[in-house]
């Protein structure tokens, strides 16, 4: 058994293999993970909207031992990750980190937001620092406006952004 605690280091090896095959292969994988994640979050979004997302990421905060601030209002959800355990473990690793490791988060979350009619603005800030800011809007124009102030905007399958 690869312990669930070590999943991210396994994930990192998978990413490195897929990156060697090309971006399309990475995109297909993120779509597969996105589909897998639907069973944990899709009903929450469909029944409770932004509040459902708040519930989902509250569980993640606790179970994954994240240092983060989470807030929600009628218009948007905002997550400020101050200590991402996923990237931190990949950096604290005897195997080399995949240089675009952070891209997987928007890679699976983005397609779910597209599917449910929300608008994701994912600012990774830096791919070597375990922190990021995720904003999810009901309104597309507000998301567009928020994109103007990000430092490193993430894309996902179907939406190009950073390189």
């Amino acid at each position, binding site marked *: 058994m690869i312990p669930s605690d070590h999943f991210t280091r396994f994930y990192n*090896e998978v990413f490195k*293999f897929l990156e060697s095959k090309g971006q399309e292969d990475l995109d297909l994988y993120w779509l597969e*993970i996105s589909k897998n*994640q639907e069973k944990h979050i899709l009903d929450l979004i469909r029944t409770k909207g932004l509040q459902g997302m708040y519930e989902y990421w509250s569980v993640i905060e606790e179970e994954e*031992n994240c240092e983060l601030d989470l807030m929600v209002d009628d218009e948007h959800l905002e997550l400020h990750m101050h200590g991402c355990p996923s990237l931190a473990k990949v950096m604290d690793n005897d195997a080399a980190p995949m240089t675009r490791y952070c891209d997987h988060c928007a890679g699976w979350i983005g397609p779910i937001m597209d599917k449910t009619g929300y608008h994701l603005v994912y600012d990774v800030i830096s791919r070597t620092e375990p922190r990021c800011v995720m904003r999810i809007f009901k309104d597309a124009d507000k998301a567009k406006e928020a994109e103007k102030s990000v430092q490193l905007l993430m894309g996902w399958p179907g939406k190009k952004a950073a390189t």
Partner: protein
Amino acid sequence: MQKRPETPLRYQEEGNVHLDFHGAVNTTIDFIVERYGVEVLHEIFAKVGRDVYVDLRRHMLEGHPEELVRHWRHFFTRENADYDIAVSEDEIVLTVRRCTAYHHVAKISPSVSAHFCDQTTKVNEAIAEGTPYRIDTEITGPGACRQIIRRRA
């Protein structure tokens, strides 16, 4: 004589566990096997054994399989598995009667991949590769196995 305090494992973990990661492993296994074949999956697991668990390999190379025993105890206990470890002069046997990973996937996923337990077999093989020990993994049932460390002949 005072007992020396144990040094932490290379990847010691505290805090909560997020068992749903095992579901993502299951999805990943099926994705890799369907698109690239089982040999690629096994090579990825071998990289985990060789490149991620460098410290466990180092201990095995230096004749200290007990570090792997500490690793097993730490993580199987964290995941609340039903297991025991028997250490004798000739071999070390980890008996897993109920693997938390397997049973969690069975609960949350449509099916458990036929290759789910390859993660154990192949990572173990890679940790032992080139060391004085071998690790044999015997799958004894759904979510049950024996993992045996023996000195190579």
